[in-house]
């Protein structure tokens, strides 16, 4: 049962993103939206934690929330896929269940 984990809090401010990564299962997906998108950048105090999860978990970021904050897709961690709202919907369909880490 693959699960889509949706995170919307900055990993630099709250523990919810870290807690999510501590509970994901192989084959699950993680989608960063809203303030969580700041966690997508490489070379941050959080990037090693996220990279460690990416061997068996697919990670996505909502592109509109990135550019809203002046962040560039070129500088996100290699392997993170940028999606739009339609892609967000697809992810909810592809996964049996969804959990929001508020």
């Amino acid at each position, binding site marked *: 049962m693959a699960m889509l984990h949706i995170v*919307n*809090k*900055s990993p*630099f*401010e709250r523990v919810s993103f870290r807690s999510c990564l501590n509970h994901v299962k192989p084959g699950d997906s993680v989608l960063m939206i*809203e*303030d969580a998108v*700041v966690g997508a*950048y*490489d*070379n*941050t*105090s959080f*990037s090693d934690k996220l990279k460690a999860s990416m061997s068996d978990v697919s990670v996505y970021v909502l*592109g*509109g*929330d990135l*550019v*809203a*904050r*002046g*962040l*560039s897709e070129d*500088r996100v961690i290699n392997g993170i896929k940028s999606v*739009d709202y339609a892609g967000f919907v697809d992810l909810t369909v592809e996964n049996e269940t969804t959990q929001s880490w508020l």
Partner: protein
Amino acid sequence: MATKKFMFVNRKSPYGTVYALESLEVVLISAAFEQDVSLAFLDDGVYQITKGQNTDGIGQKNFSSTYKALGDYEIKKLYVEKESLEERGLTPDDLMDLVWEDEDDDWAEKPSIILVNRAEMADAMAEQEVTLSF
């Protein structure tokens, strides 16, 4: 009215919550009282002043250009914490070019951003008479 040292402390990313916009509005209103106002950007607050923000995809008003008006409001001290940038994979080059115009120097543009380390930020905070944190 005696002038007091006011600092607005900004620690949240814009758009995800309303704190950044609320702070900016209070800053602009407070400018009418002609106090000695400075702003601090630390933790996720540094994302408020990144350049190239584009909110077309999220249906919210892009208020980043309003920070460029702060100089007109006599707000010339924007402290930005180096460590907060580094922890987020950012550099000072990722920030908007925020300036104020010096009327006494033929309207020359002077930088408003003051890059400080964590200890210097603590010192700047300690100097204040009024601190408002968002």
